[in-house]
């Protein structure tokens, strides 16, 4: 069934100002202020980092190994820093840091297709209300706004092209879309041509504001304020140009996170979080291992392991663990049964995801699958419950908070679900 939505409805009900200034004004901040760094941010100013393994990481080759069983695959499991808990041998560094992580091993979601599964999971699959819900990042951008840094609240570090991805925002409107950094590169046109000095740029912006002020006399403020806001934001981005260029990060950090795409992007994301971006998503593509699953995971997992471990170390070292929620997941796991291409297929029935950071009871394993991993052995959790959990972890009362689509109030997460209590500290 196609999602129920009315574009024109959404757009026409959306006031330009509410869309464009809501976050910034609510925070009472100047978008032109320099980025605040970790220690300057309020202790309760929570942030989120989402590591997204697009295509579907295998739970059997990661968090929920079933070694030496029919579907267990070739790899061993190894003990972790939590007594009695084992994970795949492909994640030795994470195993040492298991007490910092919380893992759900009994995820059960609906959709076995990428095209519909990805958006459903990233939206927390709320009950159908006839509107297009925002992705996690857009939702958080709306609910929490930018931090005091004034940096855009939702940045997406991904391979391939970058840009401003408004479609993630759903009915919230384009402002809540993602600023996508393709290959960790800065947005298009971020770099000012050499012939324009900073002074000259400031001057032309002041002139533009002058014209805007004159125009705004005896007109509703929205249009000029919206125009001013995007120029302010553009300048905020420019002032933090180095932040948007992963190549500028120290070599030794690249070593620690690993010189893979995922390592580079996770390092970049960590720096963006430190600089005060509210929500950062890192996407790694190519996890759809219908063929050669085991060699693929043998190649991929160590890269994820290394990046995730370096991230955990950095967050701990910098005292950010209690302020930043980290989630690592995909749209589903992979089938226990091994197909003729030595691959595993799409598996929403019983899969795993991991998290750490603020509000999360670390060192927890929630749920389990049966001996061969072919079904959940304990209460299954849908993604809606996890969205409630994550909202709770960053201090949003997900049972009561609402989005407004025009005048229509909408629950921010599936209204029939609630947080997974065992995951919350």
């Amino acid at each position, binding site marked *: 069934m196609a999602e129920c939505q009315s574009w*024109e409805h959404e757009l*026409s009900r959306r006031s330009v100002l509410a869309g464009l200034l809501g976050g910034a004004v609510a925070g009472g901040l100047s978008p032109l202020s320099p980025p605040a760094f970790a220690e300057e941010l309020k202790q309760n100013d929570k942030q989120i980092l989402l590591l997204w393994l697009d295509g579907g990481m295998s739970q059997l080759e990661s968090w929920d190994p079933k070694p030496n069983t029919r579907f267990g695959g070739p790899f061993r499991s190894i003990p972790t820093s939590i007594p009695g808990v084992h994970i795949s041998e492909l994640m030795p560094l994470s195993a040492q840091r298991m007490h910092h992580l919380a893992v759900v091993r009994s995820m059960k979601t609906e959709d076995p297709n990428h095209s519909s599964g990805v958006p459903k999971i990233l939206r927390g699959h709320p009950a159908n209300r006839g509107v297009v819900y925002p992705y996690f990042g857009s939702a958080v951008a709306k609910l929490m706004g930018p931090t005091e840094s004034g940096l*855009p609240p939702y940045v997406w570090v991904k391979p391939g092209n970058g840009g401003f991805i408004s479609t993630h925002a759903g009915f919230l409107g384009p402002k809540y879309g993602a600023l996508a950094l393709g290959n960790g590169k800065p947005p298009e046109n971020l770099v000012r041509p050499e012939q324009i000095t900073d002074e000259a740029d400031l001057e032309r912006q002041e002139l533009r504001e002058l*014209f*805007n002020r004159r125009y705004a006399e005896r*007109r509703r403020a*929205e249009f000029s304020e919206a125009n001013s806001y*995007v120029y302010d934001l553009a300048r905020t981005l420019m002032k933090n140009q180095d932040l948007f260029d992963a190549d500028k990060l120290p070599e030794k950090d690249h070593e620690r996170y690993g010189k893979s795409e995922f390592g580079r992007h996770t390092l970049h994301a960590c720096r963006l979080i430190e600089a005060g971006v509210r929500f950062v998503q890192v996407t790694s593509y190519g996890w759809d291992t219908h063929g050669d699953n085991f060699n693929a995971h043998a190649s991929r997992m160590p890269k994820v392991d290394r990046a995730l471990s370096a991230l955990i170390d950095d967050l701990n070292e910098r005292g950010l663990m209690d302020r930043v929620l980290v989630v690592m997941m995909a749209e589903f796991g992979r089938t226990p049964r091994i197909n003729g291409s030595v691959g595993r297929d799409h598996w929403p029935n019983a899969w795993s995801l991991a998290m750490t950071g603020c509000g999360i009871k670390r060192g927890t394993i929630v749920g389990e699958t049966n001996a061969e991993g072919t079904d959940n052995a304990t209460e299954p959790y849908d993604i809606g419950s996890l969205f409630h959990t994550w909202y709770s972890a960053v201090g949003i009362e997900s049972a009561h908070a609402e989005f407004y689509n025009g005048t229509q109030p909408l629950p921010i997460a599936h209204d029939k679900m609630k947080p997974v209590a065992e995951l919350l500290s």
Partner: protein
Amino acid sequence: MLLRAFLIANLLSLCLASDIPAEEPLHARIDQLILAAGEGTTPADSSGESEFFRRLMLDLSGRIPTREETVAFLADESADKRAQAIDRMLASSDYPRRMQELFHVILMERRGDDENWLRFLRAAFEENLPWDRIVRTILIPEPDDEKFQGAGYFLTGRLISEGAMAPVDVPGLTRDVGRLLAGVDLQCAQCHDHLEYEDYKQQDFQGLLMIFENVETRRDVKFPAVTEKLMTSPQQFQSVFVQEPRTTEPVVPGGEIIPIATFPAGEEYLVPPDKKQRTPGVPKFSPLKALANGLTSAENELFARNIANRMWFVMMGRGLIEPLDLNHSQNPASHPELLDLLARELTAHQFDLKWFLRELALSETYQRSSRLPESDSQIDPRSFLVAQEKRLSAEQLFWSTLIATGEAERLRAGTKPEQAHEPHSLEQLVERHASLKSLKKEFLKTFANPPQEPEITFEPSVKAALYLMHDKQVLELLESREGNLAQRLNAQQDNRKLVEDLFLTVFSRMPEEAELQQTVAYLESHQSQRAEAIGQLAWAMLASTEFCVNH
């Protein structure tokens, strides 16, 4: 059919409606209804001359006026110069281009371009084809008329599969037909009767859907075209709430149920399919034709109300019904009598859009200032007692930038002598100059919405800001080159004259005295870097709200 009942109620309300003398022209009756509804509220002033002229030009010609056009209009002392300007623009070659661009965006919502389709739209507005005829041409394949061959793109452009994982979205096409041609978004009635709007029934959606499920894209011709399969049985459906199997025959939005006509085996086709020639057959029973005729019938109120409301939105910046595609009894028009009047009059004038736009443009309502009345800054925008600011489309912004920076003038002046006798429309300039082609592409990429998102509201973006701030091609427009604005201004030694020229060219108006003084002072304080200062001013104006909205 509840939609039908709703329309009858509307018709009844019409009979009880105003006692305005029938002989009054439509624009006068519009103003009377708007003023009557807003009784007690002071309307905004009438727009100033340059405010009116820029707005009209953007609406009917799709671009700002040139400095010369503005100067000439301001100098014109004839009493009916506004009406003259309206007629001039409707007759100009800018008009079909503007309508082509406008309707391309309305109907295709940035799904992509098709040469044949654009040619069709252009031809339709060059010939001022009535709207009902345009819609019939879109829905019923007319492959024999070369000019109109591209009309099928409305359907075929939506019947494209985006790869194996995304099947052809026939429900999406069905929804768009309802939204764009009848003003009813039946999407939420796909799986069950609409939960909130009692007019929207699942049968309405399913009855429309089955017509398009019966359609196939033709592969035997080079232009976009569809063909129909044989339809022999009703559509089966059931609500996800009430799991009872139901059936329907094709349903016309706002119209009748079309009974399925069956024929004995072997006699189903007017033209049987030819496997050798790979030509599709033409069935005797064409649900698409029945839909096209039923939808565009003079009796179909939804059809008339939709186009009247959409054209009102184009000119006035806000629909009488909003959202534009939620026309139903629980979402009445802000001015119900007015919408009824517009729909009725447009129908009576055989859906002549040029006539309709002219009437709208002639109204005082259209010609009000967008500046709020001094006495009432809280005036409700839905009252239409003050003009609404409107988003500039990417196309309007592109053409206006070419004019404001003198780029169009520069390239025209640089035309080879042997071509000098030819007219140089803006689109011809783009055809001739690769730099403009790429600039236009970038403008569309930067300022248009993503595919399938209606362009309704003003949505400035950081992307666009960075583009105007830093793009090399954009900045080059502001550098002094033979025949462009920067060069002309640089040559002007009198700062007052310079500022007047700048304002006339970019903002299409004279500067106010305070602005004049301020700007002259700025130039004087930058004597040593005069050229740079002129460039700074021009950039700031291009990036300002005043330039990038239609006010």
